[in-house]
Each structure stands twice: as structure tokens, then as C-alpha cells.
């Protein structure tokens, strides 16, 4: 039979999504940008790149020139090196925060949606309460408890950004739990745990993946606000502290630290935004064909 329909129909949602992503030129460029930042962050963490960020390479606040293409900061350190070192912080904050938020969001949302009843009501009460408190207040409270430093940043941002995902997952799980495939699993005696994590969760994974790229860029942006509040990363450069430094530098005409950090951040956040949109288009069947 010459019909091309058969393989196309058996192709799974994932396969289809991957194909449509591959065809999306912007998504592929965005993915390349994300991979490039990841590579820079990895090289920086093993000391190949950005290792000399703390060394004095010129005068204080030297404008960009051939030696230091992004200029220097107040201590005469290279802004380029700091920006590279900052990539490490940004990418680790994005990754860890997204993973924390997803872990909490998926588990909480899935349990609420799957078990329903009192458990559901309690969980919904909890996250309604939690989400009615302004995020910034929670951030402040958590860093007050945790002290300052990168671990506090991870936890503060991770613990405050899971509610939206939990809501989405809860809704999806409620939709899925009465479907035939789950009933079939019940019929062969699967445990709740098995039904929930082996059968249902993989079917809501697309939401998690879309959410991952949103969380990632949101965390990178939030790190700046934490730095401004004096609650940011200590002891190593981050884009947040670099941008925050600019509030004292701009009046002296020192714009390069702000520009370098903003530009570096713009690149990766934009890439995640574009990737997130492309993932949503590819994975969310509701929006397909628009």
C-alpha cells in the first residue's frame, strides 16, 4: 500500500512535536543559544572560563577598549570575565529553581488531583493561601530564615514558584484519572502510586516541559530583584549584582557593567521565551494549527 498515512498516524505526540520543533528555525536558534550559555556556564564552573574575574586588569571604571572590551568595574576587574562568571550563577539558578518548583508543583498537583476529596481541599486551601501572599514577601521571609547566599536564592525562588504548575497539573490529572487507560491499569491491579506516576504523569509531561522553560527564565530575572534587595548571591559575580551596582555607577557615566549584564541576560531569557513558545505550540494540541 502506497499510502503515507499509516506511519504518520502511529507517530506519537512527542515524535510529532519534535518534528515540528526541528522545522521551527527560531526555536532551533533559541536552543543553540541556550546550549551555548550552558556550555559557558559549565566551562566557567570547571575554571576554564571566567576564572580571572577577581583579578585587577586595569584602572577603576576603565571604559571599554581593546584590552577590556566591556571595560572594568570599581576594582578594576574585567566586566567581561564577571559577565562570563555570572553566566554560571544565572544558569544554575535557572536550573535548580525550575527543578525545585517542578518537583513540588508536580507532586502537590498530582496528589490533589488524583486523590480528590479532603486531601484535594486541603491542598487547594494551602496553595490558595500561599499564592495570596505576595511573592516578594515570601522571598524576604525565606532569605531571612536561610541567610544569604546562592542556596538561599535557589530555595527562596524555588519554594515560591510552584503554585501555578501545581494548579495546572491538578487540573490535568483530574481530566486523566477517569480515562480508559487509567481504568485499565486499575483493572489489572495497579497501585495508586503506579497509576499516578507510571500512567498519568507521563501524559501530563508536556505541561511540565513548557513550564520548565518559563520557570528557568523567570528565575534568572528574579535573581536581579533579590540582588537589589541585598538578598542575592554573595562572593561571586552575578548579573543581578552587576545590574544592581549600576545604580551607583550610572551617575558617573559608567554604563558598561549594566549593559554587559543586561545584554547577557537578554540573550538567554529571550532564547528561553522563544523556546517556551515553540514548545507550547508543538506540545499543546489545543493550540495546534493556529
Amino acid at each position, binding site marked *: 500500500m502506497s499510502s*503515507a498515512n*499509516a506511519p*504518520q498516524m502511529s507517530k506519537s505526540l512527542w515524535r510529532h512535536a519534535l518534528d*515540528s520543533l526541528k522545522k521551527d528555525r527560531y526555536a532551533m536558534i533559541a536552543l543553540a543559544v541556550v546550549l551555548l550559555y550552558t556550555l559557558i556556564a559549565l566551562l566557567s564552573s570547571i575554571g576554564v572560563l571566567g576564572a580571572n574575574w577577581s583579578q585587577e586588569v586595569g584602572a577603576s571604571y576603565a571604559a571599554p577598549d581593546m584590552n577590556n572590551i566591556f571595560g572594568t568595574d570599581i576594582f578594576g576587574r574585567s566586566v567581561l570575565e564577571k559577565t562570563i562568571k555570572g553566566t554560571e550563577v544565572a544558569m544554575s539558578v535557572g536550573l535548580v529553581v525550575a527543578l525545585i518548583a517542578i518537583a513540588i508543583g508536580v507532586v502537590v498537583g498530582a496528589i490533589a488531583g488524583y486523590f480528590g476529596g479532603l486531601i484535594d481541599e486541603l491542598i487547594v486551601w494551602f496553595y490558595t493561601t500561599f499564592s495570596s501572599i505576595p511573592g516578594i514577601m515570601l522571598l524576604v521571609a525565606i532569605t531571612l530564615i536561610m541567610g544569604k547566599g546562592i542556596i538561599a536564592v535557589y530555595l527562596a525562588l524555588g519554594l515560591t514558584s510552584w503554585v501555578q504548575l501545581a494548579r495546572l497539573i491538578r487540573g490535568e490529572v483530574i481530566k486523566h484519572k477517569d480515562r480508559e487507560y487509567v481504568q485499565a491499569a486499575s483493572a489489572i491491579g495497579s497501585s495508586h502510586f503506579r497509576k499516578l506516576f507510571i500512567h498519568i504523569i507521563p501524559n501530563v509531561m508536556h505541561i511540565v516541559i513548557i513550564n520548565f522553560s518559563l520557570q528557568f527564565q523567570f528565575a534568572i530575572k528574579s535573581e536581579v530583584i533579590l540582588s537589589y534587595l541585598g538578598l542575592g548571591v554573595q562572593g561571586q559575580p552575578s548579573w543581578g549584582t552587576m545590574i544592581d551596582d549600576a545604580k551607583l555607577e550610572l551617575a558617573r557615566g559608567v554604563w558598561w557593567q549594566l549593559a554587559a549584564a543586561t545584554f547577557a541576560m537578554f540573550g538567554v531569557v529571550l532564547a528561553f521565551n522563544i523556546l517556551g513558545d515553540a514548545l507550547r505550540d508543538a506540545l499543546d494540541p489545543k493550540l495546534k494549527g493556529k
Partner: protein
Amino acid sequence: MADKILDVKDLVVQFNTDRGVVTAVDGVSLEVFKGRTLGIVGESGSGKSVTALAIMRLIPHPPGIIKNGVVKFRGESLLDKEMVDMRKIRGNKISMIFQEPMTSLNPVFTIGNQIEEVLELHQSDLSKEQRHKKAVEMLSLVGIPSPEKRIKEYPHQLSGGMRQRVMIAISLACEPDILIADEPTTALDVTIQAQILELMKKLQKELGMGIIMITHDLGVVAETCDDVAVMYCGKIVEQGTADHIFNNPRHPYTKGLLESIPSFDATTGDAKDRLPTIEGMVPSLFELPEGCSFQDRCSKCISQCRQPQEVLALKEVATGHAVSCFNHY
């Protein structure tokens, strides 16, 4: 013969997709007569709905485009009209109802509002009171009980069958010359289906419009249509009166469709032993075989059918009965 009100010639509609250009409608010609019903039958993807949307010039562009063809309504060429003038035809001279009664009405307007809207648009000389009166009349015409009360209701307060009646009321409010019904009963229960079809036949008698009935259901065709066009992969493969199609089908595809209708022996109540089916699947429009599109599923396929250079066209086999098959050349 009766008054010809719509004449479609060589209609070609294409869509630009990620995978290339597809020709959804490929050289379709049709005629619609006053007071008669033309059925367009085919499987999903055969181009029957696209044909209807093209007549209304409602093909979403992009990605769709009417590449070629002539659509003459009472002698006027619809494809050459400015959009402003085309809008004066839609809902007024040519109306359309759709398959999805549950979603085809706007959920946030009352049904009265939605009927009056089309009157306000095309019969602007009517006063507000007259429009309201006409809307109530239309609702009672399509058999909605206590129309004065119902007119203030929202679509979600009505059942699917009732909503389809409202759609018919909207489409007939301006007494159009042609009603295009795109699978009007597919989404409805069987008993409601019969009621809606009866209603359409009754209204056709009263108002005298021509109907284009688009369906995949030969039962619907048998019940309502005077003329039939069978479509396959964007082309008409057989065209004739209902009598021709049902009693003397000539194209292997038409024959296959008729044989695959389930039926039972009325005397014994037994179903026929085995239902014949058409082997294989409709080919993707991206990968149509060269020559006849039906070749891979056809039991009568001859070498000529696979020749790309052979021109396959509708050929009259009897008066008013045309088939596009080499077996009849």
C-alpha cells in the same frame, strides 16, 4: 429544467501547508437549481466542505486560496466581487449552516439577538419591532415551541437539535436563494436528524430555495437530494440525479459506498451476512498517485488508470449522468 441559480465551473482550491501545497478541490463543477437539493457526498477530506466554503468565499486566506474557477450566482460572478459586495450576498442570498450546532452560535448573545442581527444587516428597512417580530416568526417557523420566551435565551440553554433549528432560522431569515448545509445532522441523534431533515424539506417547499446538502451519509442523500455529486480526493467522480446514483451507480467508488451501507432484511430482521467495505484508505492529498486517485483501492483498476499522461474527466454516460472512470471510456 428548473431555474439554474448557481453555476460552479472548474473550481480549484489550494492550501499552503508546512509540507507543501495541497489541492483540496481540483476542478469541481456543479449546478444548483431553484427548489432542488444537490447532495455532495464524500469521505472527510474529499473536499466537499471546502467546495462549500469556496462558494461563500469563506476559505481562510492564508493558508487557502481559490486558484481557479468560476462561481456564477444568478449570472453574477461571485469570485470577482469586492468583499463588501460579497458580504451582501452571504446570509442574505446564500446562507450556510454547519455541522457543529453546539458551537456555531455565539455563546454570549441571545438567540433572538443573533437572528435579528442578520435582519439588521440585510433588511435595514425593518424597524426594531419588525425585526423582533420576524425573529419570533422564524423561530416558530423552524418549530421552536413558545418562541416569545425562547428568543431571550442563550444558546447553552437549548439542546443540540434546537440549536440547529436556530441556525436554520438565522440562515433562512432573509429568505435566501440557496442554503448550503454542511453536515447539518451529523452531530445530532438519529431521531433529531430525521426531524431536522424533514424541517429542511418542508421549508424548501415553502420558500423554494435551492439546497446544497453536504454529507458523508448516503442515507441523508437518499432522503433529501434530487441531484448528487460524489467527491473523492478533491474531484467529482460521479454526478447525476439521485435515481442515477442509487439505482445505476457507475463509478467503482460510488458502488463501494452504496454496498457498505448497513441494511437488514425487513421480513426477518436479520442483518446481511457481511458488510462489504472499500479496501485500503483514502490517500493523503500530499501523495496522490499519478492518474486516477482511486486506483489503489479499485477492484476494476486497469493499466490506463495508472498512466499520468491519461486525462481522466467526467464523461456523460446517460443524460445528466456523468462518471470519471476509464472503464466507461
